[in-house]
């Protein structure tokens, strides 16, 4: 009995001690501690770097909720206009948003890895196709079978190149999510992440290889304006993506001279690519003329193009008197009707003018020159028409007089 009394005594002492301890807490301190712990968790969420850390933070939030649930009434009053539940809820929302970011980053990483594999595969296919194209061009003897084979390879190469362009472009684009691009200054963690991705996926090498292959494709093929327009659009899109990411990469690699040099090289390659498209257009135009037997001097810009055509017309005009008429007419028709009017003017001049490669008045000047050439080959015979008209008019007058005299004679006979 005494033992039981002693146990009860100890129990009550503990209870009193505990209750006095509980009662002796400062509400202000409790509120401040809660606020501090919320801020700490918020900071943890912002600084979290892995899914494991996020799980730990979730546990911390639950712990916070459990620890302070008995003070919820006090906290609701003291935190006004905030509420205990709302603050815990805000932490959960913040955590969910961060988890979403993590998921987006993980997805991007997976996507980049996949893209990388596909780029490797496509690079191999491209190389094979380019080799085939080179071989076939060497052996090309214009048989229909080989032409079909060549066209098919060109078409495959074009598709494969485009696919790889898109993949590499996506890889470049995914280096920096839009949120990172908008930051005025990248954090050291951001920079490390970007460097790691660039190195891991060989992004700079891939970009250079893609541009060089595109230039090689232009060099190997003779393209039509619609093909060039398509290539130009792809090139512009790629260049835009690079323009968004390139300067930020230059910031990241400001300390690394080799990488900075590579970035500069890529910028130069984009300029060369743009020039290569223009060169290809001029080359294709020259080939169009050559296919019709019109051999022009070389040209690689609008001014040289106009000069080359005008020179050709002038030299042809000089031969009008010395060559047979039929030959002169044939030359003119080949140039003016079969090439200029049928191919260059409808197909190429809109492309050239639209891309600022040829001025509208230069085109007009060429057409005026062609008209002059035409007038020299087909001189106007207006005087012949005047004589014919004169004869016709005189004949008509004579006819009317004859008819008039005839009618007077008939009237006299009747009378």
């Amino acid at each position, binding site marked *: 009995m005494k033992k039981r009394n002693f146990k009860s005594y100890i129990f009550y002492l503990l209870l009193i001690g505990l209750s*006095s*301890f509980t*009662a*002796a*807490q*400062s*509400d*202000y*301190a409790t*509120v401040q501690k809660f606020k501090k712990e919320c801020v700490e968790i918020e900071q943890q969420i912002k600084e979290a770097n892995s899914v494991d850390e996020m799980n730990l933070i979730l546990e911390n939030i639950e712990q916070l909720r459990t620890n302070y649930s008995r003070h919820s009434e*006090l906290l609701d*009053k*003291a935190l*006004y206009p905030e509420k205990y539940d709302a603050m815990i809820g805000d932490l959960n929302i913040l955590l969910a948003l961060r988890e979403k970011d993590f998921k987006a980053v993980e997805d991007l990483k997976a996507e980049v890895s996949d893209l990388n594999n596909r780029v490797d595969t496509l690079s191999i296919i491209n190389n094979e196709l380019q080799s085939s194209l080179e071989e076939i061009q060497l052996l090309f003897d214009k048989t229909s079978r080989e032409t079909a084979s060549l066209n098919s390879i060109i078409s495959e190469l074009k598709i494969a190149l485009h696919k790889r362009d898109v993949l590499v472009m996506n890889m470049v684009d995914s280096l920096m999510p839009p949120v990172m691009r908008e930051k005025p200054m990248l954090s050291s963690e951001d920079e490390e992440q970007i460097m790691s991705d660039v190195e891991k996926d060989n992004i700079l090498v891939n970009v250079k290889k893609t541009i060089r292959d595109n230039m090689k494709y232009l060099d190997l093929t003779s393209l039509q304006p619609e093909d060039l327009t398509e290539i130009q659009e792809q090139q512009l899109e790629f260049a835009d993506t690079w323009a968004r990411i390139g300067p930020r990469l230059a910031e990241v690699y400001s300390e690394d001279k080799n990488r900075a040099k590579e970035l500069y090289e890529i910028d130069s390659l984009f300029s060369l690519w743009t020039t290569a498209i223009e060169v290809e257009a001029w080359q294709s135009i020259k080939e169009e003329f050559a296919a019709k037997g019109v051999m022009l001097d070389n040209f690689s810009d609008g001014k040289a193009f106009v000069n080359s055509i005008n020179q050709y017309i002038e030299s042809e005009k000089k031969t009008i008197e010395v060559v047979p008429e039929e030959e002169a007419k044939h030359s003119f028709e080949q140039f003016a009707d079969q090439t200029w009017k049928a191919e260059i003017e409808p197909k190429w001049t809109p492309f050239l003018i639209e891309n600022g490669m040829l001025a509208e008045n230069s085109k007009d000047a060429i057409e005026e020159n062609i008209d002059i050439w035409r007038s020299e080959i087909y001189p106007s015979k207006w005087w012949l028409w005047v004589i014919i008209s004169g004869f016709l008019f005189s004949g008509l007058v004579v006819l009317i007089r004859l008819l008039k005299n005839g009618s007077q004679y008939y009237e006299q006979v009747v009378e």
Partner: protein
Amino acid sequence: MKRSLLFIIAGLLAYSGCSSLTLQSANFSWPVESVLPVNSDGNVVEQRYSIEFNTLPLFFEEYQDSSAYAGKEVRLIRDQQGYYYMTANEFKNVYVFQAGEGELILENKISIYETGILRPAFNQRGTYIELIDANNKSFSLTHNGIEGEM
């Protein structure tokens, strides 16, 4: 008789017209104390309840030295009835004020320790204000003094 009745009625009407309107069951209590740093002029500002006052007379009353406020914090809480309880670290007393017109008027000065209260804190406990110190010693205060000692 009639005249005196009229006087009584008029008196009653005049009395009822002059009596002030009173709203009952007002509760002025703050849920938690405010810990207010004293600025260089001796003023404290409570943002949530929009109260600002000068503490120099309080420090003079406690220490007989009005410059003793430097670097101090004042702990302030209001009870249900609207009395303000004020103290600071190492104060010997808790000061109870009631609001006047543009002033706080001392209602009571409750002596706690002759040696000063170490790390005091107020808690709102409904019918009283709880004061605790660094040793977790607790006092139940009303504007009249320490409950149980009265």
